[in-house]
């Protein structure tokens, strides 16, 4: 009898209870927190009563660092923000500086930027799809089948990037005023050869997920995000479009020649996990469409307006404020630059889409089961390099 009483005391101290709720701390090291997120869950049985994300484990002081580097030195650092979509980060930064300097880049550079940004979008969404499968406990695969399929396809594109820039993930590929190099001579033919493979793979995924009853059961009506809340939260990208608002910066504020390309904006209906997933899968197909158009219309010519810079202080931005936002794979990636006429930015604020998207999590996951929280988190697709900067 005494032993049992002792045991009860022990467990009381171990399991922190509040009424009949259980406080569970998930992360920062946890299989499905997509990096280093900590979630403090308050559970009632299996049901989530309260959820609080704790972020900042990957904070590298990016904005402070930028204030102490020159405009040219920052370009390779931007790769490290959203490490799954490096090129779009570079593009956002480079376009901001070009906007502030009011320079135009050659047409071939514009086309190549669009081409690579869309390839990058596919890469990023493939990683999302694979990890979303893992979060669901393996949509198609006890943990990892879909994940490995997605990475198999991603590898093809990364090989292409490697041919182009010599690096697989951190490219340092855009420069202020164009691109750093021409693509290798056989780049376009290789890319053309891979497109049918990708197309077939996407068709497989779409069939597999959209028509899959189990996938539907796990994602439909889970984590419903209303469109008005999504707007007020500043959620963007597939999260906002999944809620049913056809807002895409590529269409709304065309940058880098996106007005020359034809594509559709896929939207969802309810704003649940299924819609967000659907939007992303359809977006990959639209990206393929843009790539095909870019390949068809690829002009000849130079890719940069100036030879590569040799000194770090070569670029000086006139004093003023510049804001530029582009449609990154995760949404509205904005760069707010305050310059004071020197070679270093006075303040460089990154409006990271993952940050705003992740803030939605506590609003939409209450009342769901623990397993659903992971599905919702996966469908928001945060990347912690970008959330924590």
């Amino acid at each position, binding site marked *: 009898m005494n032993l049992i009483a002792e045991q009860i005391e022990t467990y009381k101290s171990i399991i922190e209870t509040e009424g009949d709720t259980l406080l569970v701390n998930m992360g920062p090291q946890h299989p499905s927190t997509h990096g280093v997120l900590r979630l403090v869950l308050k559970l009632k049985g299996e049901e989530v009563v309260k959820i609080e994300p704790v972020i900042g484990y990957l904070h590298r002081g990016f904005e402070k660092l930028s204030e102490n580097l020159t405009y040219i030195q920052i370009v*390779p650092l931007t790769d490290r923000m959203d490490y799954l979509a490096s090129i779009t980060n570079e593009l956002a930064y480079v376009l901001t500086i070009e906007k502030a300097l009011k320079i135009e880049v050659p047409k071939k550079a514009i086309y190549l930027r669009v081409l690579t940004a869309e390839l990058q979008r596919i890469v990023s969404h493939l990683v999302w799809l694979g990890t979303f499968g893992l979060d669901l406990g393996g949509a198609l695969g006890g943990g990892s089948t879909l994940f490995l*399929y997605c990475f198999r396809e991603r590898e093809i594109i990364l090989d292409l990037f*490697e041919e182009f820039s010599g690096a697989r993930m951190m490219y340092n590929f855009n420069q202020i005023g164009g691109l750093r*190099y021409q693509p290798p001579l056989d780049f376009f033919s290789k890319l053309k050869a891979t497109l049918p493979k990708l197309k077939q793979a996407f068709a497989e995924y779409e069939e597999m997920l959209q028509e*899959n*009853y189990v996938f539907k059961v796990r994602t439909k009506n889970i984590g419903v995000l209303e469109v008005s809340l999504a707007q007020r939260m500043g959620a963007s990208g597939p999260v906002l479009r999944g809620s049913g608002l056809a807002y895409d910066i590529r269409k709304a504020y065309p940058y880098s020649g996106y007005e020359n390309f034809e594509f559709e904006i896929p939207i969802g209906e309810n704003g649940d996990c299924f819609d967000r997933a659907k939007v992303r899968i359809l977006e990959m197909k639209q990206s393929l469409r843009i790539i095909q158009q870019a390949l068809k219309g690829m002009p000849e010519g130079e890719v940069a307006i100036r030879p590569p810079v040799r000194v770090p202080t070569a670029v000086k931005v006139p004093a003023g404020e510049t804001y530029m936002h582009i449609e990154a794979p995760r949404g509205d990636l904005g760069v707010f630059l305050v310059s004071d006429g020197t070679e270093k930015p006075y303040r460089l604020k990154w409006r990271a889409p993952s940050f705003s998207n992740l803030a939605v999590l506590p609003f939409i996951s209450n009342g769901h089961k623990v397993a659903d929280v992971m599905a919702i988190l996966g469908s928001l697709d945060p990347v912690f390099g970008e959330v924590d900067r």
Partner: protein
Amino acid sequence: MSWMKDTFELTGSFLSAFKVTWKNLWRKPVTISYPDQKRVLSERQRATFALLTDPKTGEEKCTGCYICQNICPALVIKMEKEIINERGYAKTFYLDLSGCIFCELCVQCCPQDAIVMVRHWEIAEIKKENLVLDKKRLMENQKYPFSTIIGSKIREMQAVPKPPTASS
């Protein structure tokens, strides 16, 4: 009879999932068994660095001009200059690979094409100190194949590409 419909859909989705895995069961594995097979590296591979000597005269190309040290965003290059016979040399040259972000800016800005990236990526070390490449080790790295991106070539690479001539 919604549960009947559900059950049918359930079975159908199981079958479609089985179909995909079945198809993939007969595809060839994409794995490259690393130490036995190695993947073909791209010509522009960025992996580690080398300091070059001029193949004709056998002299070091680096003149110790500090440009790469100044442009490095990660501050991993440290060098000292000395002047012998009215020509600059790098007396010491340290490159800390553990902090390097492989952005290639140092290669891009080198006016003498003295520092290049080499296509040799098996650079893991047990001790962190060994990742600091000094001048001697950088010179030794010349034995590996170079990446095609070299400071003076970047300008050419931005221009309109010429189709390969018949001789080459």
